[in-house]
């Protein structure tokens, strides 16, 4: 199964793969949420929602529901 931002744990990073879902607002893309960019989960509010992200240097928060539509590839630290 493909990972999404919702699968990230605190401190984990990934590379955004696909943002073509209709459930992703254009505003998010404009803020830098684009394929190829890195994403890091900075902080979670209680109940894992919303998610505080660092996308390529831009810090923003989105709800988990939106996060499940943004496909990523996790960067694993070996």
């Amino acid at each position, binding site marked *: 199964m493909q990972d999404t931002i919702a699968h990230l744990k605190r401190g984990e990073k990934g590379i955004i793969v696909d*943002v*073509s879902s*209709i459930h992703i*607002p*254009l*505003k*998010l*893309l*404009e*803020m*830098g949420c*684009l*394929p190829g960019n890195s994403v890091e989960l*900075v*902080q979670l*509010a*209680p*109940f894992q*929602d*919303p998610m*505080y992200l660092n996308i*390529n*240097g*831009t*810090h*923003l*928060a*989105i*709800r988990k*529901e*939106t996060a499940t539509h943004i496909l990523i590839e996790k960067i694993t630290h070996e």
Partner: protein
Amino acid sequence: MSKQINVALIGNPNTGKTSVFNALTGLNQKVGNYPGITVEKKEGICKLPRGVKAHIIDLPGTYSLNASSLDENVVIELLLNKNDKDFPDIAVVISDVENLKRNLLLFTQIKDLEIPTILVINMADRMNYKGISLDIDYLEEHLKTKIALISTRKNQGIENLKNLIANYKDISVTPCLNASEIDKDYFDNLRKAFPNQLLYKLWLVITQDVNFGKTERNEIDAVSNFKTKSKSDLKRLQQKETIKRYQFINDVLKIGQVIDVSQAKDLRTKLDRVLTHKVWGYFIFFIILLTIFQAIYDWSSVPMDFIDSAFASLSEWTKNQLPSGAFTSLLAEGIIPGLGGIVIFIPQIAFLFLFISVLEESGYMSRVVFLMDRVMRRFGLSGKSVVPLISGTACAIPAIMATRNIESWKERLITILVTPFTTCSARLPVYLIIIALVIPEGRIFGLGYQALTLMLLYLIGFGTAIISAYILNKILKIRSKTFFVIEMPNYKLPLFKNVALTVVEKTKSFVFGAGKIILAISIILWFLASYGPGEQFNDAENIVKTAYASENLTEEDLQQKIASHKLEHSFIGITGRAIEPAIRPLGYDWKIGIAIVSSFAAREVFVGTLATIYSVGSDEEETIKNRMAGEVNPILGGPLFTFASGISLLLFYAFAMQCMSTLAIVKRETNSWKWPTLQLVIMSGFAYIVALIAFQFLK
């Protein structure tokens, strides 16, 4: 006289755009509204070198030219309309050095409109601190612009920016990239259909949300030989456009900007670890709120007492100094007490706006939004509803306007509907005076009863707002998108100048806005209280003298009786006693009734009204509070303001919808009379019932 240059300041939120505006214009600015809508319009004048003047507009913050709110739409409407008198000769895009990449998206869009554009890179003083270095020559060449590196915090680079603005004619109008490459066929067709139009402008008009950009859309729909695309295809193209722009920006920044991460010092991470923590985050937020309320109650009570007694003395002084007559009594009994009722708010309003603007400027407010979103969603609200609910403690009007960035319509509507329950500053004077009258001064656990009562009233306000939101969420059948995106800006020490200007500006507009209403109402009230129809009023002296002829009254008592007889038979007395049956079960007399009726215009009128009514016919210098304490209940005897009637009145004011301006704003923001009408009927009806129950139980 030389022509003024029109300058538009444009930029992402949190880039310090307003600081640049303040640095350029200083106190030479004015805040108004765009015609027909409630979006704030800030403009000012800036003196440039060689005697040229620039007219500067601070446009609302936006991430792109694809509007998703009323505020953002203002930017596009202006940039697309060459005939607008404010159409910029030059656009100044403000970016901040740490988010240059994201800020450039908007910049490249504006360049495509072929408007001369300067790029301002703000917060340049943080470059070393963040390990960033820029190749300005390279960036200027590839972005086809002039760059001004400035720091509003250190006051650097402003003069250079002014020079660049003055020489705006030297700036290139060539676009940075060719956006039409995203779909060649489509854009070729577009060009053929509208040969005389700017291509990118057409594209923006086509893709604007239909709710906002209505101006020129019709023209495009009217041309039959051009077929546009479906909504989802257009959105896909917008996505492609965004990706293409970022590719260009990445390529430019790869050479033009070097970031040495090892040099970066990160305060944000450390602060966020505490401030957004699952436990500490909420704890700190609670402490901050507590401090704010404590401060407002404690710090402002001294200047407020001073203002209250100063106006009482002024009124007395006027009466003694000026020759007696209708004008003097209008001044001393109508206008001065009325004005006092406005001026007395200034300390509290100023403190509230001070705290709110510090919270927003520092970047802390976004953290609160983050922390509260999940909790608020349970009640049908958004994390972003926290901002309106907090600023609602100052005034519901700006609070309701602050709901605009809530993406979901349902969450936004619920926020608008419940915000008026929060204890706005206009309720405060009513609360303060009644608390002072009916709540004893004792202390429990070191906390005063009076302060606790006030705290309780704030909690009741918030509680009712939250509970009604929960109910509305269950009742309202609205399906709407649930997007939620919020930027978490860097923490910043608030700039004194920005905070001070906000406080002065907001306080001023509150005082003058509310002031006009209060002044008008107090004049009307004075007339109604000083004149009356028929014999009962005009012949009051004889009637009273005859009635009390058998009793041996002192001259003073007799005058008192005459004055109150006159008041009872004046226009206002007749009206008041007509409505008295409706409010008597709540424990009020007709004077309070008049005050309640007149405070439907604005709550703060209450104290002013009572002040005016009580000062008509009274000779002594008295503060409003002492006059109220002396009032006697006409039916039950004893003081009018007892514990029961006081609590009843407090609760009435906590729930009732008594603010015409709020209703007008709700009408404008929801675009329907349905919601404000519901608010008025339900809130005031509920207030009546609660006040009735409270009085009947407590009396």
